[in-house]
Structure formats: C-alpha cells, structure tokens
C-alpha cells in the first residue's frame, strides 16, 4: 500500500496551487492567451453584469473541465469537438435558465452573451489544452483559476467604465454632487463600445511593462 502514496499528491500541492494562480497573471486567458475576448468586452459597461458574467463563465468552465476530464478516456478523438460542444451547451442552458429565474434583469442586460459562452474560446481552449489530458481535480482547479483570471479583467474594466461613464459604483452614485457643480461631467465615450478596447489595451500595457517576459517579439 505504501507504493500508492508515492503517486498520490496532496490536494493542494505546489503544482496544483500553480494551476490556480498562474492564469491570474502570467497565463491570463484574456491578456496572455488571447481567449474569450468577445464576451469580455461587450458586458463591461456596468459592474453587475460583468460580475454575473464572470461567475457564469467560471461555473461553466469548472464544471465542464471536470466533466470532460472524467470522460477523457472514452471520447473518440475524431468527434471530440462535437462532444465538447454538447457538454458546454448543456451547461450554458442550465446557467441561462438559472439566471432567467433568479436574476432576470441582469440576464436581460447580458442578452445574447450568455448564449455566446458556448463559443467562448476560453472554454474550448481549456478543454483541449488541459481537461483532455488531466485528472478531474487538477482540471477543476484549472477551470476555477482561468475563471478568476478572466473575471478580474472583466471586473477591472467594468469598474473604470462604470465609474467614469456613469459616475456610479454598483448603481450607487459615488461622485459627489459638488464635483458636478464644479463642471465635472460623466464621460459619455467611456460607455460606448470602443472604450472597452482601450481599457483592455491599457491593462495589457501595464501588465507587460511590469513583466517583460510577456512582451511579443
């Protein structure tokens, strides 16, 4: 029995912790792997939809990673894309129905972007790159890690867009009225789609200036 313990590593071994923390910075799905940009940009006008979206993606990614990882030895490689799509679509339908039932307003704001989680490249990318070749527990950690990595970029972009675009934080006005009296106005451009691109570019710029390894040749 003692041979067994050799290959069983502790649940939170350094290697597994790395799976969780790497995607937050070095391997960030948005700024380094360039996956899942579409939905990231479109839902970041306000904080609330951005947070709901991040949680939805994290749930689908973590659950999907575990399911694919459990099935990985029984999926014929020729039809694996279809199998992966069916797993993702089923999970997304669940998420969509839950959102419609418990957070109808937010699900209206997110409109088609909940459905578009199906074709979110992060999910397919992680299935292909990680879940198809790893055990369920590391796959779960990888899913959660990438979900967090995706989420913090979304929340950061949404925070600045909501603050400067509408002067609010979670729908509460935070910029005092006296500032407006001095002639401060909300920046209308920040709410418009182009500004999301600039905000993500700024995050990439800051991240890459601090960490020279990420710079593209």
């Amino acid at each position, binding site marked *: 029995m003692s041979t067994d313990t050799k290959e069983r590593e502790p649940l939170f071994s350094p290697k597994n912790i790395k799976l969780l923390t790497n995607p937050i910075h070095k391997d960030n799905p948005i*700024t380094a792997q*360039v*996956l*899942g*940009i*579409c*939905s*990231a*940009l*479109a839902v970041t006008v306000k904080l609330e939809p951005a947070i709901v979206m991040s949680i939805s993606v994290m749930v689908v990614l973590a659950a999907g990673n575990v399911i694919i990882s459990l099935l990985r030895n029984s999926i014929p490689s020729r039809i694996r*894309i*279809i199998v992966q*799509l*069916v797993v993702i*679509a*089923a999970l*997304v*339908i669940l998420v*969509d*129905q839950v959102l419609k039932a418990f957070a109808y307003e937010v699900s209206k704001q997110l*409109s*088609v972007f909940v*459905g*578009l989680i*199906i*074709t*979110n*490249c992060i999910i*397919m990318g992680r299935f292909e790159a990680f879940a198809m070749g790893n055990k369920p527990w590391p796959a779960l950690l990888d899913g959660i890690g990438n979900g967090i990595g995706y989420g913090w970029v979304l929340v950061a972009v949404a925070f600045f867009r909501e603050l400067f675009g509408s002067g609010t934080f979670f729908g509460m006005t935070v910029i005092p009225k006296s500032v407006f009296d001095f002639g401060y106005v909300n920046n209308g451009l920040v709410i*418009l*789609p*182009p*500004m*999301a*691109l*600039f905000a*993500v*570019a700024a995050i*990439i*710029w800051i991240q*890459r*200036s601090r960490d*020279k390894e990420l*710079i*593209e*040749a």
Partner: protein
Amino acid sequence: MEEINIFVKSIFIDNMVFAYFLGMCSYLAVSKTVKTSVGLGAAVIFVLIITVPVDYLLDTYILSEGALKWIDPEYANVDLSFLSFIMFIAIIASMVQLVEMIVEKFSPSLYASLGIFLPLIAVNCAILGGSLFMQQREFTSIGQATAFGLGSGIGWFLAIVAIAAIREKIRYSNVPPALRGLGITFIITGLMAIAFMTFMGIKI
C-alpha cells in the same frame, strides 16, 4: 425595403466586430496578413448566409412558443425555446461540416485557399452570435434573416481585412515594446470602432 435597411445596418452600424465584439478571437489571431484574412472573411460570409436562414426556419417552425401549431393545434402551448442554444450550435457545426465537404468536392482550389479556417468557424462567436441576434430581433421573414446574415458577414469581412492591412504596415513602426502585438491591435480596433460610429443613425 426593410431587407435593404437591415442589410446596410448590419454592415456598418451593428457591425459584428466594432459594435458587439463578436468573433474577436479569430479576428485577433488571423489578422496578421491580408491574404489569410480574406480567406477567413469569405468563409464567415459563406457560413453566416447559410446558418442564419436555417436557424430562422428552425426557430420559427419548431422552437419558439406556439411554433408547433402547424403540426397540430394542441401543440400551441409548447415552448421549446430553451433548447435553442444546443440546436443552433448543432446546426452550425453540421453546416460547417457540410459546407466543408461540398467545397472540397466541387471547388478544390477554394478549399485549398480556405484551408484550416473552415472547421475553425464552427466555434467563431460571430456565427452563433448571428443566429442569437436573429432570434432576439424577431425578424418577420426569411428574407430579412438572410439579409441580416449576409450583411453581418460582409461587415465582419470588412473589419478583418482592414485590420490586417493596418497590421501589415504597423510592423514598420516603432511601437512601445509592451504594446507590441496584442495591445496596439486593441487600440487600432478601438479607433476603427469610433470611425464606424459615424454611421450611426443612417436609415434607408
């Protein structure tokens, strides 16, 4: 007339890339040269113009609430719309497969030039997005749905060819190291999106 309005609107005002950021992943990954981006853009138009009308028929006659009435009046209360995600993606995946086989059989030269892009399109969010927007905007005829599919495809084609042309030139510029590649592409796309916003409000 409504068809033309939808067509023009979906190219310029509701542009898939600049207004909704759909298909961004392949837009960023495949826009390094004009030649490959023309291939991918053409493939997207091709697939959108088939999948949007097919998904329209599927939605109108099978999935939406009361759509099954044409079989028997007693099905008038059946609402299958929660199945639409999985049905749409199945249609898209099988259409892409079908288109790939047809193109391979009848036009090997086009098949060779599209190369690996055709299968990749199945997971391009612009395609699924096209079908979901079609469902959300409640078009009233298949003509409108087709016009929307064609217009969205052309809009996406325009966007990727334009960014590829700019990226080919920007290789000779002195971009700050940390912005090279991804960062500068984002900023250019943002500027292009601002330019496209000038079309807002056009109505034919």
